[in-house]
Structure formats: structure tokens, C-alpha cells
């Protein structure tokens, strides 16, 4: 149980970090971490299908898309 507690805490911290980072790449990585932890939580909640989808789509593909977009725009928040 404490494990879940820590995971959730970490997830929320990652989410807050995503909002704080000025470097958008870091923010995106933090968001990816959120997704990843969410995937683990999905797994813990007995939803393997969703966990797979979240990991493959939410954590991986979305991050790639974000990074491409950031490369084509601006890396740092003003």
C-alpha cells in the first residue's frame, strides 16, 4: 500500500514539476513520467490493456510528438 502511496506522490510531484520547469523538454519528460506512473497504476488496478495502451501511446508516442513539436518551435518558456 505504501508503494501505491509513493507512486501517487511521485506522480503528483512529476505533474507539478511539469508545470514548473521552464525548459519545455524537461516538462515533457516530467509529463511522460506522469503517464508512465499512471500506466503502472493502471496495471495495479487490474487493467493491463489500458496499462499497455497508456505506456505505448501516452508515455512514448505522445512524448515523441511533443519533442518534435518543441524542436519545431521554441525550447524555453518565456
Amino acid at each position, binding site marked *: *500500500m505504501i508503494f*501505491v*502511496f509513493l507512486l*501517487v506522490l511521485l*506522480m*503528483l510531484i512529476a*505533474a*507539478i514539476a*511539469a*508545470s514548473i520547469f521552464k525548459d*519545455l523538454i524537461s*516538462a*515533457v519528460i516530467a*509529463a511522460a513520467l*506522469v*503517464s508512465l506512473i*499512471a500506466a503502472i*497504476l*493502471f496495471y495495479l*488496478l*487490474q*487493467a*493491463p*490493456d*489500458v496499462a499497455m*495502451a*497508456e505506456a505505448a*501511446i*501516452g508515455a512514448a*508516442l*505522445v512524448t515523441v*510528438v*511533443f519533442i*518534435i*513539436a*518543441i524542436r*519545431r*518551435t*521554441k525550447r524555453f*518558456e*518565456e
Partner: protein
Amino acid sequence: MSFLNHYIYYIGAFGLIFIGLYIVLVKHNLIKVIIGLSIMETGVNLFLISIGYIKGGTAPIFSTPEIEAARMVDPVPQALVLTAIVIGVAVLALALSLAIRLYQHYGTLNLRKIKEQRW
């Protein structure tokens, strides 16, 4: 502590939703706002899945014959979340492509500066 025990997933889910909303409300940068939307999306998905969870349940897959049907978690929220994830990705991809075009036009992604369409 038992409260946390019961509601930790809800707390996590709504934590994500509100952090996401907060980012959208407060941040200036479009990419940041899109990140906020995606975090919000994840939060909603987590909430849906945790609604369907049953204490001590198993995944709704009859992979072996001896699995008890009565202990399976609800499959419907999982199906919904699958749909929601894909929809989320679709919105995100479109948003980012718009962000790229916006940057080409305005040279900035600061939403407080992009105010040509108003009044």
C-alpha cells in the same frame, strides 16, 4: 490513514486533473498548456479506471479456466479509457500541429501575446 487507503487513487486522479487545469489557467506558453491538457486527460483516465476497481479483483481476462468471474474488475471503464486515450492523443497531435503553425505565424507561443482575434 484508512482514508488515504481508500481514496489514494481518487486523490491521485483528481490531483492530476486539478494540476492540469491549473496549468491551463495560469501558464502562458502554449506547449505548457497542451502538457496541462494531457495531464488532465491522464487524470480522468485514472479516475475512470479506479471507479471500476474491485478490492482484490483480477483483470477481466479468462486467461485460465480457474479464474473466478465474481472477482473480476469492471471491464467497461477500461474499454472507455482505451477510447479516451486514443481521443486524447488525437487532440494532442492536432494541438501540437496547430502550435507549430502558430509559431510560424507569430514567432512566439506566449498566449498572452497572441490576441489578434478579440472583441
